[in-house]
């Protein structure tokens, strides 16, 4: 799958929720687009990543 423009190969089945936790993203500061659609936070744990997925993850930082 492609995550933030980078090809990622996973050896085990993994949910989007597990992936963002493993990569130390902070769930309350991110937004995720899966194959061109915003992914609701409620669906992070029930969404299984697939080989042909294109995923964009944005983590916001403070200041404005």
């Amino acid at each position, binding site marked *: 799958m492609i995550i933030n423009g980078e090809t990622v190969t996973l050896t085990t089945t993994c949910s989007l929720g597990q992936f963002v936790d493993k990569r130390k993203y902070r769930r309350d500061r991110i*937004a995720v687009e899966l194959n061109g659609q915003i992914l609701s936070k409620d669906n992070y744990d029930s969404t299984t990543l697939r080989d042909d997925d294109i995923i964009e993850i*944005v983590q916001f930082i*403070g*200041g*404005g």
Partner: protein
Amino acid sequence: MEIQLNGKTLHTQCKTLFQLKHNQNCSENTVIILNGFQISSDMPLHENDQLFFISKDHMPSEEYLEDMMAARHTPGVHSKLKQGKVAIAGLGGLGSAIAIMLARIGVGQLLLVDFDTVEPSNLNRQSYYLSHLGMKKVDAMKHQLANINPFIQVETVYTKVSSENVCPLFKEYDVICEAFDDPKAKAMLVNTALEKLTDIKIVASSGMAGYFSSNAIITTRKFSRLFLCGDMQNESKQGSGLMAPRVQICAGHQANMTLRLLLGITEA
């Protein structure tokens, strides 16, 4: 031939700018703007030229003021911006600067949403004056915008944006400029608006603290409807505060991306 002079149709026999300037009894202290560009030398006139003679000596009548203010806009652009509806979420360093820029370019309908009042530590980077201290930011900004461009509609809502009020607040708008300070609030707005408002576009911000290189601040199209401005790494924290220059650079990126979206351009 027929041209537009100061926003009104004019039939003229004059062949050049200076002939017409003389013919209209304009003083030497007149600014000439032809098709959105200031001109100082004579040149031929063409059918349908959009021409402004603006006297520096006196305040124009209200009848002419709006057209004269729009004289520097590229022809065709102003009419599209006048139809534009943009919401600005947060009126701190980013939002106050974005609001002023969008008012200057003549975006027809602005919504300002903020829950805060102006206090002294805001003045290091936010577009307010000492005379605004203690005022709601939405009121202080509405007052400034009325003095910059009285020909646009400005709505204000004094409230904190939450996942519950995103829909009612923003559903009528084309673009939301996310201009919050708190990263959780940024993420909440982006997630909620993209999930619930199917046509809206968001121009958000992330990373503009300190005095790092100006050139690190960029605009990227992150999602199909999310555009992100900032350096993506310099958050405001102890020892790295927010300062006017980089905050305004980021605000400039957001305002320009918003302008591009209103003109139908979706490339960052």
